């Protein structure tokens, strides 16, 4: 063991000397690995960031929720025109559903429209204005920065009240406040009764509650769309996640009754669920991951080939040195170790630089609100990958060096 450590240490010292003696070549050699490691680390960090963003975004929907809708989130087996031809779900359907459903914790209708919101000289465009009722809050985990959700009274009498998502509030009232202020949508005045805390995640886009506003549902039909156009979504929350399936079964039965479907007729509605969304997202991320793996793997492979090439040249150039070392007692294994550790050290240095670049890169990307932080396992990954690449690409040249005939290599000019 002591002997092994001695050899390792001396081998490393010799390699470091050789690297220092051939600075320019060593730097060139590292380029490939710098790029390779930087891209591996950045890619894995980015994928992780995307994944986390999606997971947290999706889970903000709540795992206990079902969404009964005309449309299916994932169009797997039902053709699109069939979905389109389905009868709309109306507010009456909702009312009946609510009456019949025993199991849900809460049931609320929702329908949305895309609008611009104005306040003074400020405008926020493309806002998802959600029409719903007072029960909506019970189907979500929304929390308030100030104010409250609109009440049953306000809902039933279709008052012009509105609850703003945090991002909208930030843009309309950059200096804070906003509660009890009046905003305008299509010239119609609404009073702000509540402002949400920051909730979601950027990946959800418009479906992020931060970019949504909530008004009593009748106002949607009164001001923004004809009741005949829109199909209502029935938001159903199960008491807990264990009961989601029971709630779903009950919901399906009730909906079939409401729609008067015969036993052999297919559902003309969909029951959507976060779980399905997660599966879909995981599939997508899997594809991104594979692509990332292939691309960065290729970058690394090219880097490794470059290193192997330069190591071969280096071995050839230093044939005489190898002869000298052998003449004064270096064993084949010692020469093998010398060149492998040289290549490994070069790669480690390259890996460290690549990691540095990746850290800088991720800091730059983080400026654009993209959640990337280089984690400890990315660092370990970088080290392991550069070490393995170094050993892998150094092996063949080192083996050639170790097998050189001492007499021939001494005679080499």
């Amino acid at each position, binding site marked *: 063991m002591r002997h092994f450590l001695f050899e390792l240490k001396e081998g490393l010292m010799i390699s470091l000397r050789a690297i220092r003696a051939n600075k320019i070549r060593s730097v060139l050699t590292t380029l490939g690995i710098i790029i390779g490691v930087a891209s591996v680390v950045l890619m894995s960090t980015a994928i992780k960031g995307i994944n986390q963003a999606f997971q947290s975004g999706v889970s903000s929907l709540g795992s206990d929720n079902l969404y009964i809708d005309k449309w299916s989130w994932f169009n797997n087996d039902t053709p699109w025109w069939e979905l389109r031809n389905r009868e709309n779900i109306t507010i009456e359907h909702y009312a009946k559903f609510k009456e019949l459903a025993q199991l849900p914790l809460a049931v609320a209708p929702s329908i949305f429209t895309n609008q611009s919101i104005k306040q003074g000289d400020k405008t926020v465009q493309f806002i998802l204005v959600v029409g719903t009722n007072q029960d909506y809050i019970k189907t979500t985990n929304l929390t308030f920065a100030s104010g409250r959700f609109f009440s049953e009274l306000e809902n039933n009498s279709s008052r012009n009240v509105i609850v703003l998502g945090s991002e909208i509030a930030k843009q309309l009232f950059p200096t804070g406040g906003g509660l009890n202020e009046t905003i305008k949508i299509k010239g119609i005045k609404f009073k702000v009764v509540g402002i949400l805390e920051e909730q979601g995640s950027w990946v959800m886009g418009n479906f992020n509650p931060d970019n949504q506003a909530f008004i009593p549902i009748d106002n949607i039909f009164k001001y923004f769309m004809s009741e005949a156009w829109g199909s209502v979504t029935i938001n159903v929350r199960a008491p807990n996640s264990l009961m989601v399936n029971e709630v779903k079964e009950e919901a399906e039965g009730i909906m079939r009754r409401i729609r008067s479907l015969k036993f052999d007729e297919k559902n003309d509605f969909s029951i959507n669920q976060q779980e399905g969304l997660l599966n879909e997202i995981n599939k997508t991320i899997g594809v991104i991951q594979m692509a990332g793996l292939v691309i960065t793997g290729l970058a690394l492979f090219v880097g490794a080939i470059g290193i192997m090439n330069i190591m071969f040249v280096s071995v050839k150039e230093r044939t005489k040195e190898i002869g000298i070392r052998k003449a004064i007692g270096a064993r084949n294994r010692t020469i093998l170790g010398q060149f492998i550790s040289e290549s490994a050290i070069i790669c480690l240095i390259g890996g460290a630089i690549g990691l540095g670049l990746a850290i800088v890169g991720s800091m730059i990307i983080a400026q654009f609100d993209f959640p990337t932080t280089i984690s400890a396992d990315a660092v370990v990954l970088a080290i392991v990958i550069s070490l393995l690449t170094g050993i892998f690409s150094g092996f063949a040249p080192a083996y050639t060096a170790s097998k050189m005939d*001492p007499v021939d290599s001494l005679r080499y000019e």
Partner: protein
Amino acid sequence: MNIITIEHIAKIYQVGSEQVFALRDVSLTIDKNEYVAIMGPSGSGKSTLMNMLGCLDTPTSGLYKFKDQNVGLMDDNDLAAIRNREIGFVFQTFNLLPRSDALHNVELPLIYAGVSSKERKERAASALDSVGLADRMHHKPNELSGGQRQRVAIARALVTNPSIILADEPTGNLDSKTGEDIMSLFNQIHEHGNTIILVTHEEYIAEHAARIIRLKDGLIEKDEFVENRYIPNNKSVIQ
């Protein structure tokens, strides 16, 4: 005591379809503290014989015993160990590592011998001192004269206290004055009890040795002791 015994050694190179007989049938013994010069025309097999004696190369046939060990039975590792511990090489073209300073060049065999860093530095420094280069330890080879480079090479050969020093035309790249300095250094090394074999083309260099072996066409033509051995009186270099 015999350090080297070779019996009916042959070395045949296959070049294409032709066989080159570098050594045909060579037998000799060399005792401890001998001082042998090997001479012969170019291509007679001198270097081939030296490489064989130095365990850098293995014979095609014949027996080689180094200190009663059969070298023919050894693997690469054993040969490397013998070269490291028992043999010190001095080459015509010095063969120093160009990018390392004198001290590191002399240290190198000790690294392969597993000597600790501290002891290595001390021994390398004292070897350099003994060849008169105490003030040149941190010079790279290209900052040294030819004679000084050869001294570094000799220090490197001596530093492991080998049983035998093999020098293949050590003065071949030096002017006659510097060559003479190197030869008196060898003389002192010999007087310290070392065994030396050197290859040379020059009669006056060979006369420093106590015994001259003449090769021709891969055979020993003559093997005789020198009657009027030239002993340099310049003792300034080694203490």
